[in-house]
């Protein structure tokens, strides 16, 4: 006997979509009646509002995984720092992990609050050219749990895009929670008002991570989100004393390299484990600045450069088309 629910790439079209309640995937969903009776599609006024707000954003990069704890937030923070090292560039870091927002701590901004101005919410600035937004700044205490179901999370994500006065931004980096659910669907839907250069997908070498990351790659393909490439974190450890290399998370099925080959996506780079990375994150400092000589820093910098090149090329191609 087959299972009752058909699950092959079936996805919720979104409660605001024209297909809401009517798509094949809606069969059996307890919300089906509500959705089918609801609005015919996304509010055009809403889409127009988001488009206007995000018009001054040149490049948008999503940092995804599928798997938790692989280093998405760490990577997002370092990508932001790396790009903001060029003082002529304006960088924005948006943390849409509503249940587990790590970015405030990693950027040394714990305890900061969001201020409102006439033009909307002000991001919290780490540097003059690096602004950050996270639900972490909206909590009265850092240990407050945000126990929200999907729709409420989606509402806040929309507010982050609509109500934050980002100003002119060269790079908008969006850090996401693990999974392929509300937050991911919503950010892709809302950002369709502007354009997304692509996604950077983070993994670690072991199969238990890769198994979730393959799903994330399929998610990207399904929603037509270009994949800039994959970053393999925690890729080996070199002992600072004896210089011996160990595979703390052995790539039993070939690691990210094999997966990228199989799925025809780019491997942007491999970053070795360095205990200083975790320490810098805990202290809210940039690892790139604290450990400039670490092999991990070199890897990160190479990866950041490749991402920059991808975005610039993309931009040039678009300009040619226009």
């Amino acid at each position, binding site marked *: 006997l087959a299972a009752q629910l058909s699950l092959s790439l079936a996805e*919720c079209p979104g409660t605001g979509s024209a297909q809401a309640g009517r798509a094949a995937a809606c069969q059996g969903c307890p919300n089906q009646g509500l959705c089918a009776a609801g609005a015919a599609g996304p509010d055009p006024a809403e889409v127009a509002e988001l488009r206007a707000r995000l018009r001054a954003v040149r490049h948008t990069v999503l940092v995804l995984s599928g798997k938790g704890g*692989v280093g998405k937030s760490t990577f997002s923070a370092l990508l932001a720092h790396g790009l903001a090292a060029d003082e002529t560039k304006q960088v924005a870091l948006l943390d849409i992990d509503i*249940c*587990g927002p790590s970015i405030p701590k990693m950027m040394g901004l714990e305890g900061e609050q969001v201020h409102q101005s006439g033009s909307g919410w002000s991001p919290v600035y780490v540097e003059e050219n690096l602004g950050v937004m996270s639900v972490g700044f909206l909590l009265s205490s850092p240990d407050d749990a945000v*126990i929200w179901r999907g729709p409420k999370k989606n509402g806040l994500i929309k507010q982050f895009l609509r109500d934050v006065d980002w100003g002119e931004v060269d790079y908008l980096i969006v850090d996401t929670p*693990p999974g392929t659910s509300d937050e991911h669907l919503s950010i892709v839907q809302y950002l369709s008002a502007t354009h997304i250069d692509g996604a950077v997908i983070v993994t670690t070498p072991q199969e238990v991570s890769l198994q979730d990351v393959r*799903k*994330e790659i399929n998610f990207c393909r399904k929603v037509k989100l270009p994949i800039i490439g994959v970053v393999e974190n925690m890729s080996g450890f070199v002992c600072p004393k004896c210089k011996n290399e160990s595979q703390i998370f052995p790539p039993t099925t070939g690691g990210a390299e094999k997966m990228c080959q199989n799925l025809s996506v780019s491997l942007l780079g491999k970053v070795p484990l360095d205990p200083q990375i975790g320490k810098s994150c805990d202290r809210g400092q940039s690892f790139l600045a604290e450990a400039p000589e670490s092999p991990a820093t070199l890897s990160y910098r190479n990866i950041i450069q490749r991402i920059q090149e991808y975005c610039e090329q993309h931009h040039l191609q678009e300009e040619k088309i226009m």
Partner: protein
Amino acid sequence: ALTERTNLAGVRHILLVLSGKGGVGKSTLSTELALALRSAGKRVGILDVDLCGPSIPRMLRVQDSAVHQCDSGWVPVFVGQDKAIALMSIGFLLERPDDAVVWRGPKKNALIKQFVTDVAWGDLDFLIVDTPPGTSDEHISTVEALRPHQLLGAVLVTTPQ
């Protein structure tokens, strides 16, 4: 009137494995806990409610198994050396292992309720529930669905940083 015996009526203790943070070892601990309890002669089941990233089937080498139905509902997959640990995971319902389950909250909630009420667990000493990271739909729905039953408590997993 006849009252139907629920599928959880034979389960003595239910244990949630939680974290908040991803990648700290919840699924690993859930698996090892189940195997250790089984070694100690207990009847054990695992319910994997991580719908987006189900790790338990691979950890117990049953990623290619399928789920069947019986009169009382879905039959769990039996794993472990003596095939005596009962396991239910969305992993068994995917047509292909790399299929992404891209569902919003309401659909996830519906499946979790089904996993709690429609799996024929039989008589178990311990049902271990492995969860995804976060404090959202899966967690709220799982606790709500399990509350009428004998919810023992939660084990929280973390790493040092």
